[in-house]
């Protein structure tokens, strides 16, 4: 339990103080797991769209018994004198005239807005409905459209909010192929305009490369689950599995290629699945060092996310090895291994999307405005590879299949200050349309029992190796 909480808890139990937490994280269940782990028994509110306007955390505000803000951002070193004595140790007089606080975002009222609404009010309603219903919201397509419309002519924060909505849909049953990439692009576009907005930067880094991380984001999850289970409790279930990016340790080192990976299908013998059974999606998160004036790494890096989403009726066989990704990035790229296992579906996860992600260092390129007379660096690069997986059809027939991967990486032009979002592609660039036109190649079909080329280690769905470094201001 945090030290500060231990210190003020007697005041809470005595009825002299109430505590309210606010988190801006994309996934509230992660904060809920943290709350359960640490035994934080005060209410924690969810502000995924950044309505509070707070740009960095932690941030504390002390409010008196009449609703007046008395200390904004109390200094940690002055906690005893400033907060315990100067704030808790005295009574404040009520202002004359019963002042009424300004009314801002009201989630329930906003969710019920009706009629011919402006673009802003449609976005406000969308945020409210998504906060109340989450990724399973029945109307999520309309809500995402409303947020996207507001982002077209809106402020950078509207683009950030559109990204939050897209990411929510990616986590739910109505996910579209490009949702993850579009969310990252929207966040990049917002950050390009407001490079000092650290909450937005963190949101990209969460799914970005370890070279870009100030610390591991959710490495505490595994420890928390074990501790909670040791107490005889059931840990809060997480909606979205942690990806490697979220639990990776921060690093200043570029990936080092490990030898030993054997290409699983070098002769293209595995039958192609043209997307009938499984939808292949991908997304690229660039290092946020491309945003803003500072250059923090000598070379670029990115994280590639690859998602396999079973079509209606298709399922993963529980007794087969998880799918694998083989990537051939080309000259100048660095990665730890060309062979990457996907997460295992696990019991009960036969119909869920599986994710593999990996970090790559890009070929050397300009990260700062170059000599105006110099030619601009290449704006795009293409990563090629394929995925192999066992999948079962609705009638129980299980087959082994291959799909080709072609991921286009779009680098911002450092001289223009644009962002990948400015050239954001629709769904067709990250899923369905890319799979059209591919033909079955006629090679003999193999079922999963005919494999044997690869025995990838099972990927951990979640978890980490230790307690996170906490306590520092995230600014």
């Amino acid at each position, binding site marked *: 339990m945090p030290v500060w909480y231990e210190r*003020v808890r007697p005041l809470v139990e005595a*009825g002299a103080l*109430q*505590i*309210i*937490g*606010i*988190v*801006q*994280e994309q996934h509230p269940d992660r*904060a*809920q797991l943290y*709350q359960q782990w640490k035994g934080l028994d005060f*209410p*924690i*509110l*969810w*502000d995924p*769209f950044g*309505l*509070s*306007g*707070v740009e960095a*955390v*932690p*941030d*504390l505000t*002390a*409010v008196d*018994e009449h609703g*007046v*803000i*008395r*200390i*904004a*951002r109390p200094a940690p070193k002055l906690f005893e004198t400033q*907060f315990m004595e100067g*704030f808790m140790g005295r009574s404040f007089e009520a202002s004359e005239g019963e002042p009424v*606080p*300004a*009314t*801002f*975002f*009201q*989630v*329930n*009222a906003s969710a*019920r807005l*009706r*009629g011919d609404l402006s673009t802003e009010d449609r*976005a406000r309603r969308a*945020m409210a409905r998504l*906060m*109340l219903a989450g990724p399973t919201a029945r109307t999520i397509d309309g809500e995402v459209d409303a947020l996207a419309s507001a982002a077209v002519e809106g*402020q950078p924060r509207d683009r950030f909010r559109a990204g939050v909505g897209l990411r929510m849909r990616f986590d739910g049953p109505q996910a579209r192929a490009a949702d993850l990439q579009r969310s990252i692009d929207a966040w990049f576009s917002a950050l390009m305009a407001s490079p000092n907005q650290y909450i937005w930067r*963190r949101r990209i880094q*969460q799914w970005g490369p370890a070279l870009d991380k100030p*610390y591991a984001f*959710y490495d505490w999850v595994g420890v928390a689950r074990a501790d909670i289970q040791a107490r005889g409790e059931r840990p809060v279930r997480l909606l979205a599995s942690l990806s490697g990016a979220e639990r990776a340790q921060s690093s200043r080192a570029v990936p080092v290629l490990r030898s030993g990976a054997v290409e699983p299908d070098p002769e293209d013998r595995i039958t192609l699945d043209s997307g009938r059974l499984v939808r292949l999606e991908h997304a690229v998160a660039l290092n946020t060092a491309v945003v803003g004036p500072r250059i923090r790494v000598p070379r670029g890096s990115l994280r590639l996310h690859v998602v396999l989403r079973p079509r209606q009726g298709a399922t993963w066989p529980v007794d087969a090895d998880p799918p694998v990704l083989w990537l051939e990035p080309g000259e100048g790229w660095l990665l730890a291994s060309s062979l990457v296992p996907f997460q295992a579906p696990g019991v009960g996860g036969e119909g869920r999307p599986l994710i593999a992600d990996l970090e790559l260092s890009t070929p050397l390129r300009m990260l700062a405005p170059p000599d105006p007379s110099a030619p601009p660096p290449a704006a795009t690069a293409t990563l090629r590879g394929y995925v192999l997986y066992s999948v079962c059809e609705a009638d129980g027939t299980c087959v082994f299949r291959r799909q080709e991967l072609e991921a286009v990486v779009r680098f911002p032009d450092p001289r223009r200050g644009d962002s990948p979002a400015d050239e954001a592609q629709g769904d067709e660039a990250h899923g369905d349309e890319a799979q059209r036109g591919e033909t079955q190649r006629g090679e003999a079909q193999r079922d999963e029992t005919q494999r044997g080329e690869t025995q990838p280690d099972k990927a951990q769905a979640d978890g980490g190796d230790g307690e996170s470094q906490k306590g520092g201001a*995230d600014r």
Partner: protein
Amino acid sequence: MALHVAWLLLAGLLLPQEVAPARPEDLTPASWNTEGELLPAVELPRIDGRGTVNLGELRGRKLLLIHFASW
């Protein structure tokens, strides 16, 4: 007069019951962090799904508001 009042009541029933709250654009950091100002009435959902909390209704006890992240 009675008819006039009846019309007013009827109009009240027919008009939309929801009053659009202030726009999110009004939510600037200053609204939350300016000493001497009233904490705005903002209603947000709880992360555990157990309803919502309106910060403007938290009167009578001192309040410590903490923005944080579990990462």
